[in-house]
Structures are given as structure tokens and as C-alpha cells.
């Protein structure tokens, strides 16, 4: 989650803006690092449980770049 002021500060903040819906999960919910990132098998759509349409994880570099992008946006909006 973003920090107390709302600034994105974790890779999960980036992941939720790479794709929508519950497309990812963690092998350890208490240790949310890239190495523990996995795709979910199913997502809920319009009352139905269907296969996750996302079939490939973003690279660690892509995730980190998205986080920097979001942080820059936030900083520019809150300066």
C-alpha cells in the first residue's frame, strides 16, 4: 500500500496499475518481494470465476520502472 501520505512505496503499488483485477498473488503474503510474485489461476468477472487472462508476469525491471513512474507522478502532484 502507499505510505501514510499516499505516495506509492512498494512494488504492489505498481503491480495494481500494470493490470486491473486480481491477476497476481504472492507465495508469502508477509514477504511481498518480486521473487515471491506469481500469477493467480482464476479471477472473478461478472459473477463468474474464469481463467486469469494475464499469462505472463512483468519483469522485475518493468515493475520497478512502473513504481518510479508512479512516484514521480505523485511527487509532481504534491510538490
Amino acid at each position, binding site marked *: 500500500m502507499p505510505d501514510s501520505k499516499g505516495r506509492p512505496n512498494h512494488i504492489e503499488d505498481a503491480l495494481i496499475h500494470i493490470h486491473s483485477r*486480481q491477476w497476481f498473488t504472492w507465495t508469502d*503474503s508477509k514477504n511481498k518481494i518480486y521473487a515471491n510474485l506469481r500469477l493467480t489461476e482464476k479471477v*472473478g468477472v461478472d459473477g463468474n470465476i474464469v481463467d486469469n487472462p494475464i499469462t505472463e508476469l512483468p519483469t522485475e525491471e518493468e515493475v520497478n520502472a512502473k513504481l518510479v513512474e508512479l512516484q514521480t507522478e505523485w511527487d509532481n502532484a504534491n510538490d
Partner: protein
Amino acid sequence: MALTKLNARSATALDATILTGNLPAISGASLTGITSGLTEADQWRVHSSFTGSATPITSNWERSDTTGFGKLGTGLTESSGIFSFPSTGIYIIYGQMSFQFNEEDTDSIMSIATTTNNSSYTAQSTTREADKNTDGRRHSCSCMAVFDVTDVTTHKFRLDAQSVASSNAVACSSGETITGVTVFRVGDT
């Protein structure tokens, strides 16, 4: 005032009209046929945030494990976001959700949806949030449902996040329950 005296040999045919005065204390250990009111209490939460809708929220459920949490009874079971009950009875289901608005959304909905045939779900309790702002501010909402579980194989429930704009988040955490459900069994069906 004198205590009521009962003849032990007539105690099987007590007449309420003779029960007057101060009654003696009765040990609860001797009573039968009395059950505790609350026999189940459990809490589950979604440990990872997501954007957009999830109907139902299928993934990333975990039982609360924050220091101090204590489950009463057997507890719920969860599979792909579908919750099953450990026994029949009247249950109170409390749902809570936190929406983070990154774009304008006039109708973000949280629902507790129940089924009585293990197939078709009906939103039994719903709450809605909206915000014109796009600065990531959060709105927390909650609702409750009373569910008569007469058959644990057919009576189940799920939590839905509906009509959530694709950039808006359902905020979740693995450290505390921000989005999740709390369930109490309050009596027999």
C-alpha cells in the same frame, strides 16, 4: 423473606405458582440442554490490493493472523473466494472494504452475496461509494448480512467488488484487515 423450599420428590412436577420468594442459586454445572449463544467467530481478509472489479474476490484471502486474533469454533473454509460454514445456524456476516479513488467513479459497490443452492448468488447486503476526486483518497465502507444456513453444502457466501473503475483500487493488507469479512454464528437455524 423466607427461601422457597422444594420437596426433592416433587421436583419432577413443579408448579410455577408455588415458586415464590427468593430462589436458591443453582449450579450451572448441573444444567443440561443449554448451549452458548456464540459458537463461531472468524475473520478473513484480502492480503493484496487490486484495481478494478472482482466479482467475486477469488484470490489472496487469508485468515487474520494479526497479534491478538483468536478464532472461536471451527471457522470458515474458503475456496476461490467462496466461503463455506462449519455448521448450520444463523450467522452474521460483516463485510468491509476500502476503495482508493484514482479516477472519478460514481458507483463503487461492495456486496455480500449469498447462495442457497451452491450456484446462483444474490447480493444480500450492499454498500456504495463514490468520489469525484482523483488524488488517491480512500473511502471505507461496510455492510452486514444475517444468513440462515440450513445446509452447509448449499449455503455459502462471497464478497464482491463491483463497478470499480479500472484505475481505482480496493486497498488490502496482510498486516491488518482493511478489506475482508468477519463472521459470527449467533444461534441455531
